[in-house]
């Protein structure tokens, strides 16, 4: 449990002359929620895209379960069990919940869909996250609320048996009650043994759900904190660059 499932060592990324990531150390542990915070342009998205395999890092090392890996394509990330839940959710409105959860990795039997098996697995995944608010697994996603859609998107990663789930601003478009629902979902996801990385601008959410907080400031990791031992003011200080911490926590 002490070994991080994902460990980044001095990763760098530049776009032409602009160094977006200037040697980042970062880690995420199974069963813990790690919040990645920082102002716009701090490099959060670039860091995430590297893990997702969408935009490979230029330099540095990525350790997965202690052994070095190369994430040069989304498929490689997926093979290691790294799943990204994007901000805009990426669900197909015209498909139902089960179809969305299994899109791209349908269960087949005899050349055709094994719908029953997919339904059973989808129900199990939603149940593992204690989701009870769906009327039917065969509901079209178009008819779901924002929070429910977020739930389906997160449950997708459970169906895929992800080891690392990266959530990009999962509460950005949600109301108060739905935000609370999704945050407790994130908590349960981590409790089930998944390493969760959450990007958020909302420090209230971060402190509610995160175990560890990593702060990016202009392409450098300025602070790695334990949520319990810090407070919003301190984090805001690191985000805006008025505070610095040399040694990693």
């Amino acid at each position, binding site marked *: 449990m002490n070994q991080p499932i994902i460990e980044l060592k001095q990763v760098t990324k530049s776009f032409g002359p602009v160094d977006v990531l200037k040697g980042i150390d970062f880690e995420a542990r199974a069963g813990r929620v790690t919040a990645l915070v920082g102002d716009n342009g701090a490099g959060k998205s670039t860091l995430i895209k590297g893990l997702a395999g969408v935009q490979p890092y230029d330099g540095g090392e990525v350790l997965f379960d202690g052994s070095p890996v190369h994430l040069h394509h989304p498929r490689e990330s997926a093979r290691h069990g790294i799943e990204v839940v994007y901000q805009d959710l990426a*669900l197909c409105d015209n498909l139902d919940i089960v179809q969305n959860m299994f899109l791209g*990795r349908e269960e087949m039997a005899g050349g*055709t869909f094994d719908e029953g098996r997919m339904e059973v697995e989808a129900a*199990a995944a939603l149940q593992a996250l204690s989701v009870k608010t769906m009327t039917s697994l065969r509901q079209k996603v178009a008819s779901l609320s924002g929070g429910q859609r977020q739930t389906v998107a997160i449950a997708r990663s459970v169906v895929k048996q992800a080891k690392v789930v990266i959530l990009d601003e999962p509460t950005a478009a949600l109301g108060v009650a739905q935000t609370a629902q999704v945050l407790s979902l994130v908590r349960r996801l981590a*409790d089930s043994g998944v390493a969760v990385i959450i990007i958020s601008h909302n420090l209230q959410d971060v402190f509610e759900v995160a175990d560890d907080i990593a702060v990016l400031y202009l392409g450098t990791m300025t602070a790695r904190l334990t949520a319990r031992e810090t407070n919003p003011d301190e984090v805001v200080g690191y985000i805006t660059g008025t505070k610095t911490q040399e040694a990693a926590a």
Partner: protein
Amino acid sequence: MTTETQGPVVEPSDASPAAQSLLGRGVEQGVFEHGRSYLRRLRGGEMGALPAIGGLLVLFIIFGSAHSAFLTPRNMANLITQAAPLVVLGMALVFVLLLGEIDLSAGVTFGVAMAVFVKYTQPDGLAWPVGLALAMGIGFAVGATIGFFVAKIGVPSFVVTLGLFLGLQGVILMVIGAGGTYRLIPEPIKAIQNSNMPVWAGWAMLAALVGLLVLVAMWDRWRRARSGAPNPALSIVLLKLGTIVVLGAAFVTFMNLDRGRAAQAIMGVPIVVPVVLLIGLIGTFVLDRTRFGRYIYAIGGNREAARRSGVNVTAVKWSAFVVCSSLAVLAGVLYVSRVGSADASTGREIVLSGVAAAVVGGVSLFGGRGRLMHAAVGAFVIATIENGLGLLGFSAGATLAVSGGVLILAATVDALARRRSGGGSTNS
């Protein structure tokens, strides 16, 4: 807003009651419940083919009471052969309409294929199966060309297929020669639209269809039960099968009535019926039960989501255009079989009727929504308007005007349904 749900929540999920209840939820337990959830979907804007079926009934009532010849077996058989090419063309177009694309060249594609087919199967020419293979090859090639430009390069399908619509008319002219007409020679091709099955074969066809549907239903239920997923009530399946049996039996009986003029009896289900049925069944199987079909819907619903889920968007789009053009050639076969010849204008006008058929039947122009069956119903609406107004002595002009009005009406229904189901947000 503090949520302290810290305890271990995950337990073995198969046996837990919550999973079972979520699994069972929405699985209809009876005919009544099935009806209720259908009504709920209707209110949510998922109307499917219902407006078209309603419209078809209204048309039948109007034309049936306006002209005594309309509801006769002879005219119904005529209507079927009239509608058949449009049904297949509409089904072909569904494959690209579901992607949110369009193929304006589908008609002239079959025009080229049929010009070649008819010209080269003249008595001194090729054997008809060879000619047919050649025609299918032309459809495949045109579809692959459209797919290359649309899926690979990213040119809008409207532009690519409009260009082909013009260009392929030129090709037809070159094949046929200006003002030329070739008579269709091969007897088996003529027979499709001009001959009928023996009386017993009509019943055999219905029995085979129902048997197939029963087998599929049983296979599905057995497989769901094996995975532990609850099945909807058997009564719903029986109701659906029963409806098909009753309507099918009525149809076969009606078609088996003698519709000859005097001395010679004409009876039996037209051969084109099992041909179209087979195309529809295979196509529906592909769309509903294979990855290719599912990904067509997914791309039509949210292209980016499909891509991120690992769907090879380019390959699926490309293949869909190939399927569309190839099916369009089959529609062309039914067309020349009925008309009996090919000339320079073959397939020029019908493509817009094909799009109209699909849209009238409830296939969304915005992509992601629609079934092959919808295109078939829509095609019958268009064909019924032509047939009925023709019987009543209206001019071709009036028929075109009414068909156009129906198309606009259907597109309006589509746009309203889309607004209602909130499907407008993702496909921007």
